[in-house]
């Protein structure tokens, strides 16, 4: 499976890290980083849908 499910963090103390996401790198796409209000405003003005990648640095 190519996803990591949400699990309570204290269920398994010191469990192995999950399959994860690397640090930011050189993307081919013009991402707006961590600014949802700006993305929504821009999408409304440009009449474009928003593509979201929700990730975590672990």
């Amino acid at each position, binding site marked *: 499976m*190519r996803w990591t499910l949400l699990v309570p*963090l*204290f269920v398994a103390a010191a469990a*192995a*890290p999950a399959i994860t996401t690397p640090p930011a790198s050189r993307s*081919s796409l013009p991402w707006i980083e961590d600014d949802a209000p700006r993305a929504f405003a821009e999408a*409304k003005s440009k009449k474009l849908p928003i593509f979201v*990648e929700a*990730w*975590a640095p672990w």
Partner: protein
Amino acid sequence: MRAYVFTDPTLTKRAGQFVWLSIDTEKARNAPFTKKYPIRAWPSMYVIDPESEKIVLRWVGGATVAELDKIFDDGRRASSRPTASTDSLAKADALFSEGKYEESIPAYRAALKTLPKTSPSYARALESLLFDLSTERQPVECASLSRSSMPSLRGTVAGASVAQSGLDCALKLPAEAPDRASMIAAFEKDVREVLADPKLHLPADDRSGLYGSLFDAREDAHDKEGAERVAREWVADLDAAAAAAKTPEQLTALDPNRLNAYEAAGELDKAIPMLEKSEKDFPDDYNPPARLALVYLKLKRYDDALTASDQAMAKVYGPRKLRVYSQRIAIYQGMGDETAAHKTMQDALAYAEALPPGQRSESTIASLRNQLGSEPGSAAGPCGH
């Protein structure tokens, strides 16, 4: 995704089709977003209609560039569709997008009946349904659907994903299930075929996931030699991918997979130089020291583990800091310092309670309170809160 897929230059042609929003779910400033759009699995990708602010398409997990192309096309279609669409796939996608996984199961089953198996949307719908079944803990249905879907998906990326989902679900079948052993054997064969297929070009982390499932299957069968053989292949595959990495980001992205493989192979000490290099390449990233702490903990090198944990603790943020606290408690317990372990657990509880809505987890808080309350010699309930 960020190191290997979103860097693909062929994606630049998509730049003007969406507004692209990247959300680090650990950052407090994104808590309002994660409160409004709860995340159940990482990574998750959404297409959101900015007017209604509704998710019109959700994809859970990693994707190849080819799969992303389908997601983009389906996402654009979904965002331009009337909200009261009667299309069966649109209905299923809408339920899935709202996180109504139980309800989206019959909806996706209905949609799959209407879609030709060659349709670009078929594989996406099938993978979403398998996620539903896995999330809703329905391994019998998940294994059965994966089994019946395999013949039409052989030799495809979706087939690789279905083979792995099938194997993972088969391993969760009750021990008394009459077809458990035959299901596991069939999916192991499928996974082996996927790994041996030179035309598939699966990303290294996807291949690693397949090896991990194969390893679990051999462990499940109490086949020590078989598990060791898989672990050796797993390490070799990832070491080859690491040797071929073109950037430090690509190399570091393999760390968690390599760590799992080294542990499976009983070669955990090999992870130490790997993580030390990542720590040097990415001095602001808490992951390398956090992983080093875990390795030292497992090797019972508690002083080194604590030093690495100190470094991780100074850099970590968001809900994941609780994982570092958790490791730290285990380190103190390994050292026999129950006082420090108890104090760290109190600190963890205070931190968990202070997280904003969208990041705060009531189940984590309850678990911590329960652990503090159940410690020998402690009063019921956490101290100092």
